[in-house]
């Protein structure tokens, strides 16, 4: 593969964007520590796994479906290829693995060059597709905002949500559900926040905004440690559109976290809905949305299931060895983009749920102190030798002469002194029990073979060839056409208030319908 100057320029720009944003994201959180999980050790192990495996796995996925096609699918459901998975983790986990190996002297910035160019290009194409409706590459690119959804979906979330106020039964149940499920999500994800995602904000009127919150990978699915303990969780992914009053969400970042002015409290919530979705669903399917009372009961029941699963899982984890904890954490981080393979219908347990043996050899280094300190050095003061730049430089946010991720030297275009790739997939190992062949989906509990088969054969209506190019720019000028009507009706088929209402409604019409 002959690399061009333009390719390297773009790749270095994408690397630099991740450098800048990673520093900002980490600055406001500090290095994550836990008394339960060896977090830094598993994070570093996962970075090595990502460096060695992502190139081959992404190429395998693209043999079935392109990055941009998967981005189109993901935009219409709440599964784990949003943020932080795709906006930050895919490129940064990979680049962190690369940077560790550079600073250890095990590779040079120009090694695995075709892999680096490919991974960053995959990321770019996916992100541009996922952000198609807001026209950005990342939330950072949009000033920390993510307006991913099309009008037709926002209208349904807006129309069908039930109003609530602090202290009423629905408000209490919704808040209890979100707290319990957030807690459960952190535990499922071994102390990481990757089971949670927020997008938006979307403006409902001059006083109200809506954010869309996703809780992902909750049921028996890909993670071996959820076998049994999550058997009662009836949905793998749940989405809560949430309206708030008196609060502006000024930051929705590429970790899927939000910040608001004034600070968000439960009392600000004035409306909620509940949906599920996955690779096999026609977009978002309502859950318990038939009436306010049904939704209240559904939130309450799901909160209890989340608490029960939390207690069972916590007891299981408390009995784990350090190696098992590290495996689970490293696999959680590494496999954060695994749903790319589910959408493409080529998911294999051995690809995503094992520790690559090239990464596994580093385990003896990963004591708590080295892991905490080296992670702090690579993310905070940027003090690895390879991260330092000439003294005239001021890096973004930190104002120090440093760069988190090494750029590719352009000299390779002249002297050709680089290596192309880390090579093919290698075997993996794990201290954890083997995953049982049981996957909770919107189409029931399936074997993996059946899950992959259905994924390969299924195309959601809004993503088929008749509809996928009918974008928001087209809709603006063609809302009165049969094609627009068909597109909106397809999305509205499960809506309580908007079924068959078509493409002509504006936001004020939705508000009037809610009041009828």
């Amino acid at each position, binding site marked *: 593969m002959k690399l061009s100057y333009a390719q390297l320029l773009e790749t270095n720009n994408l690397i630099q964007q991740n450098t800048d944003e990673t520093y900002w994201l980490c600055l406001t959180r500090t290095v994550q520590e836990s008394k339960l999980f060896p977090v830094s050790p598993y994070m570093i192990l996962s970075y090595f796994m990502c460096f060695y495996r992502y190139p081959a796995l992404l190429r395998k996925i693209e043999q079935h479906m392109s990055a941009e096609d998967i981005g189109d699918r993901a935009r219409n459901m709440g599964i784990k290829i949003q943020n932080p998975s795709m906006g930050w983790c895919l490129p940064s986990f990979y680049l962190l693995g690369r940077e560790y190996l550079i600073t250890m*002297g095990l590779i040079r910035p120009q090694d695995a060059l075709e892999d680096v160019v490919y991974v960053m290009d995959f990321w770019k194409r996916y992100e541009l597709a996922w952000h198609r409706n807001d026209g950005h590459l990342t939330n950072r690119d949009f000033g920390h905002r993510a307006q991913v959804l099309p009008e037709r979906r926002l209208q349904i979330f807006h129309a069908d949500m039930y109003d609530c106020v602090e202290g009423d039964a629905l408000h209490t149940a919704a808040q209890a559900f979100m707290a319990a499920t957030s807690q459960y999500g952190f535990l499922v994800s071994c102390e990481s926040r990757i089971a949670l995602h927020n997008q938006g904000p979307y403006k409902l009127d001059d006083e109200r905004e809506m954010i869309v919150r996703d809780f992902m990978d909750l049921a028996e699915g890909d993670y071996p440690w959820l076998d049994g303990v999550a058997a009662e969780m009836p949905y793998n992914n749940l989405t809560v559109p949430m309206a708030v009053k008196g609060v502006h969400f000024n930051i929705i970042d590429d970790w899927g976290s939000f910040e608001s002015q004034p*600070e968000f409290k439960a009392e600000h919530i004035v409306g909620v809905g509940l949906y599920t979705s996955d690779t096999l669903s026609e977009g978002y399917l309502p859950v318990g949305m038939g009436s306010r009372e049904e939704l209240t009961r559904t939130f309450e029941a799901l909160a209890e299931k989340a608490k029960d699963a939390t207690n069972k899982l916590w007891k299981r984890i408390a009995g784990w060895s*350090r190696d098992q904890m590290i495996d689970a954490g490293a696999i959680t981080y590494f496999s954060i983009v695994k749903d790319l393979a589910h959408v493409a219908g080529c998911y294999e347990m051995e690809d995503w749920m094992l520790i690559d043996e090239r990464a596994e050899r580093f385990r*003896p280094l990963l004591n708590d102190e080295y892991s905490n300190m080296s992670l702090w050095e690579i993310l905070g003061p940027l003090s690895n030798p390879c991260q330092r730049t000439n003294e005239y430089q001021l890096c973004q946010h930190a104002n120090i002469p440093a760069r988190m991720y090494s750029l590719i030297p352009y000299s390779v275009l002249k002297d050709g002194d680089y290596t192309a790739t880390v090579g093919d997939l290698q075997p993996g190992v794990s201290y954890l029990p083997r995953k049982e062949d049981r996957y909770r989906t919107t189409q029931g509990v399936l074997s993996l073979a059946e899950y992959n088969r259905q994924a390969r054969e299924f195309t959601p209506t809004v993503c088929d060839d008749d509809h996928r190019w009918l974008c928001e720019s087209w809709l603006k000028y063609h809302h009165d056409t049969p094609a627009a009507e068909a597109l909106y009706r397809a999305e509205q088929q499960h809506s309580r208030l908007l079924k068959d209402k078509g493409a002509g409604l504006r936001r004020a019409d939705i508000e009037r319908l809610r009041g009828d």
Partner: protein
Amino acid sequence: MPRLYGDTDKFGEQNNTPVVEAFHGAIRAMVRQKLAASGQTWQDFVFGKAVTGITADDFRAIDQRLLDYGHRYLWSALVSQQERPEAYTAAQGVGEDLSTFSFEHPEAPTAAADAEGRELRGCGDNVVRYNEDLIGTARYVRSSATVLNYLQNGVPPGTIAVIDDSGGTLTAPILEQFTGVICAGGTVRSHLGILTREYGIPCFMNSKISGIREGDTVRLECTATAKTADAYQKGIEMTGRIWRVAQ
């Protein structure tokens, strides 16, 4: 001995921390040695014998060398210390008897009791601003054994958990039962900050405290302004106070 690419780094300096510098220096020396022994060019070596010929045993030897020098690692996950006590510093304040234990942060602001009997013992970053300060009983939660005990017997009412863990998993099954939280690490955007906000539990992150013992009555200034991302980015101090109050 061959030189590595990084050996001619114009701007690179040593790592900040001794353990990282020791490990990375030893790894680079080992890579030079393996490259020389292979007789290969770098291009052939890097994803060939640098992968198959550098094994877990090589990294284990680097770890052992530092221990042989007398270094003992600082632990953060209790399981690390428990499984390999010979490699880590001793664990303090995680047993059953916490009567004499207290966090002692040098940066903690302290002052004698005021007219209302409030003795300043520290401060922290307020996650959410509430209308009233919070008064409760300080109880340290630092180990799975403590969590399991509370899970089986219930968390005593009015407990303000004192935690050094900014994560949300150690206390996952019992967090909802806390009246308040004083966390010695993290920021308001850390996992514990997110969860306490969801549960509506007053919480101070990044707390610096001194002299607060198990069972002390403490007061959190939850009416203080919540710390913002902007304040972290600009290094602006924005804290609420933590008092010990007469019972």
